[in-house]
C-alpha cells in the first residue's frame, strides 16, 4: 500500500510494518530539543522520580530565547539549565550567542533525512525541509522523553501542497508561505503532516525551504516535509563537512519519500508566478494581504531575523536593498542573525558593514524580541514590520502594538521608506 512521508517514518521509528492515520504509536525520538525552557523542564523531570536522563546523547539544548539574559531571573534560568547539562552529561549544548535552536541544530549536522525530532518548541516543524520528522511538544512531554526516551504520537493525516511556476524578482518563499496560510487559514493544516512538492519548491535554496516548513506551525500542522534533492545533500555536506555521509542521506531520502498514490486528506496547487509580495497583518498570521493593500502604513521598527528569515540569503537581500541607502529617520532597523555562523558569513560577505552603514542595529544571534522577552520590544502604539513567523496580539511584549510579517526584502525596503513598502517602491 502506498504511504505518505509521515506514515513511512513513524512506522519505521515504531518498528511497525505499516501504520495508518489516526493510529497511536510509541515514538523514540532521535533528537529531543529544548531551549531556555530546559530549566523548567528539569524541575518537572525531577518530579517524575528518576535521576538520570535515559539517552543524554539524544538531547539538544540551546540558550536562545532570552539570550544574553536581560534580567537576573532570566540569568538564573540559564544557570539552572547549564547545571542540568553538566549533571546529565548533555553534549549537544549550545550556549548564549551560538544562535536559534532550529538554525543551530541544522548547522551542527544533527538533522538529516530520516531523523525523528521532538522539540519543546512549536516551530519544530522546521526540520522537515531536510527530510526529518519534526514536531512540537509541551514541557511535561519533554520531561517524559528525558525519563523514558519515548512518547506517544498519533499518526497524522497528510496534506499535499504543490507549488508550480517561477518566482518573480523579489518574490520569495516567505511570500508564497504567507499566501498559502492566508488561503488555507490558521487551522488549514491542523493535526496534519504537510508535504511540499513541485518545481517551484525544487528551485528553492535550502534557506528558502526552511521558511515553508518552519511556518507550517502557523497552519496548525504536526510536521511538514519538503522533497530532498542535490540542493539538500550539497547543503548538508557543506554544513557538516562530512561529504562521506552523503550516500546514507540519499538512501534515507529515497526510502522515506512519499509513494505515488499515497492517500492525502487534501491536495492543493499554488502558482508562484501569480504571487506578489504578501504581508500578514495584525493580529493573526492568516490575516494576509497583498503588499499593495497595506503599502504606506507607518512603521516605527523593522526587524530582520528569527528562525524563519534570519539566514545569510535574508541578510544578503536586505544588504542589496539598503546599499547606498539610509534607514528612514525615526525608524529603527534591528538585525539579528539566526546563528553565529550566519553572522560570520554575513561579516565576511560585507553585508554587516552595508547594513551598519545604512543605520541598522545588530543583536546577538538568538530569538531577539520575537516573543517579547527583550532586545527590541515596541512601545504601546508602535508598529513593527518583521520577518518573524508570528504576529499575535501582545507577542512582542505589549498588546497595544501592531506587528506586520513580510519577507526580508519588504522589511528592508520598509525600513528605508519609513512605511510599509516593497523593493520596487524605493
Amino acid at each position, binding site marked *: 500500500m502506498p504511504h505518505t512521508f509521515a506514515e513511512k517514518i513513524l512506522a519505521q521509528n515504531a518498528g511497525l510494518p505499516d501504520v495508518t492515520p489516526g493510529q497511536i504509536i510509541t515514538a523514540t525520538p532521535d533528537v529531543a530539543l529544548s531551549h531556555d525552557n530546559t530549566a523548567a523542564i528539569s524541575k518537572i523531570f525531577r518530579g517524575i522520580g528518576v535521576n538520570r536522563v535515559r539517552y543524554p546523547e539524544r538531547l539538544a539544548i540551546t540558550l536562545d530565547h532570552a539570550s544574553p539574559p536581560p534580567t537576573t531571573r532570566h540569568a538564573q534560568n540559564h544557570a539552572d539549565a547549564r547545571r542540568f547539562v553538566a549533571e546529565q552529561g548533555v553534549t549537544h549544548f549550545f550556549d548564549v550567542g551560538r544562535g536559534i535552536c532550529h538554525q543551530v541544530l541544522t548547522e551542527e549536522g544533527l538533522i538529516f533525512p530520516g531523523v525523528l525530532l521532538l522539540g519543546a518548541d*512549536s516551530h519544530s516543524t522546521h526540520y522537515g525541509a531536510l527530510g526529518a520528522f519534526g514536531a512540537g511538544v509541551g514541557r511535561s*512531554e519533554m520531561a517524559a522523553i528525558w525519563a523514558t526516551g519515548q512518547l506517544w504520537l498519533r499518526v497524522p493525516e497528510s496534506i499535499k501542497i504543490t507549488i508550480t511556476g517561477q518566482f518573480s524578482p523579489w518574490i520569495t518563499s516567505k511570500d508564497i508561505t504567507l499566501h498559502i496560510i492566508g488561503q488555507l487559514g490558521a487551522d488549514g493544516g*491542523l493535526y496534519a503532516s504537510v508535504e511540499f512538492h513541485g518545481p517551484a519548491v525544487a528551485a528553492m535554496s535550502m534557506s528558502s525551504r526552511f521558511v515553508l516548513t518552519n511556518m507550517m506551525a502557523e497552519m496548525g500542522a504536526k510536521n511538514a516535509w519538503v522533497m530532498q534533492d542535490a540542493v539538500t545533500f550539497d547543503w548538508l555536506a557543506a554544513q557538516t563537512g562530512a561529504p562521506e555521509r552523503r550516500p546514507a542521506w540519499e538512501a534515507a531520502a529515497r526510502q522515506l519519500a512519499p509513494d505515488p498514490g499515497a492517500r492525502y486528506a487534501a491536495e492543493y496547487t499554488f502558482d508562484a508566478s501569480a504571487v506578489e509580495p504578501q504581508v500578514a497583518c495584525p493580529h493573526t498570521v492568516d490575516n494576509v494581504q497583498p503588499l499593495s493593500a497595506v503599502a504606506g502604513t507607518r512603521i516605527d521598527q523593522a526587524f530582520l531575523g528569527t528562525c524563519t528569515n534570519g539566514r545569510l540569503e535574508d541578510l544578503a537581500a536586505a544588504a542589496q536593498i539598503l546599499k547606498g541607502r539610509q534607514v528612514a529617520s525615526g525608524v529603527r532597523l534591528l538585525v539579528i542573525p539566526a546563528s553565529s555562523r550566519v553572522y560570520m558569513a554575513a561579516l565576511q560577505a560585507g553585508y554587516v558593514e552595508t547594513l551598519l552603514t545604512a543605520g541598522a542595529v545588530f543583536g546577538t544571534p538568538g530569538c531577539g524580541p520575537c*516573543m517579547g522577552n527583550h532586545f527590541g520590544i515596541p512601545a504601546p502604539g508602535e508598529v513593527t514590520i518583521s520577518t518573524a513567523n508570528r504576529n499575535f496580539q*501582545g507577542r512582542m511584549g505589549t498588546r497595544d502594538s501592531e506587528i506586520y510579517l513580510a519577507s526580508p526584502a519588504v522589511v528592508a525596503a520598509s525600513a528605508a521608506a519609513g512605511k510599509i513598502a516593497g523593493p520596487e517602491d524605493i
Partner: protein
Amino acid sequence: MPQIHNSQPTIQNSIRGRVWKYGDGVNTDVIFPGKYTYTVTEPAEMARHALEDLDPAFAANVQPGDVIVAGKNWGNGSSREQAAACLVHAGVGAVIAESFGRIWYRNAINNGLLAVTCAPAVAALNAGDVVEIDVQAGVITTGAGQTFRFPPLDPAVQAILAGGGLIPYLKQQFQSAG
C-alpha cells in the same frame, strides 16, 4: 481573587460551572503572554496572568469549575505549556471548543485538564450559562436542559487523565516498576 489550585488536578466524572465564551482562533500568546514564560513560574502567579491579553476580566472573576467555551483552533501557536497550566491553576474545570491547536490539546491532557471537541455544544452555550459535563458518559448538558454527546476519549488520553496528568501517571509507572 480566584481560588488557587496548587495540587495536581484529577479529572472528576462530573464538571459543573459557569461558561466563559470566546470566539475562533484564540492563540497561546493571548492566553499566557510570552514575556512571562521564563519568569512567572509559581501557580498563583500564573493564574493571575491567565487570558491576560484576551479578557482582562477573566483572572479576577473566574471561579473553580468554570468552563471555557470557544470556537475553532483554541490554543493555536506556541508550545508553551503554561497556556494550559495557567487555566488549571485558575480553577478552570474544562474547555469545550470546535477544535484545538494540537500542542495545546496535548498540554491540557498532560496537565489533567479536560478538553472536549463539540461544535454543537459551542453553538448552544452562551457566556454566563451553567454547563455540566459527564465525562464517563460523554454528555454535555446546558442549563436549559439541552444535551450534546461527545466521542469517547482516546485510550492513551484516558490513561493519562485517569492518572491525574502525564507526570503523576509516569511517576506511578516508575514506582510500580520498582
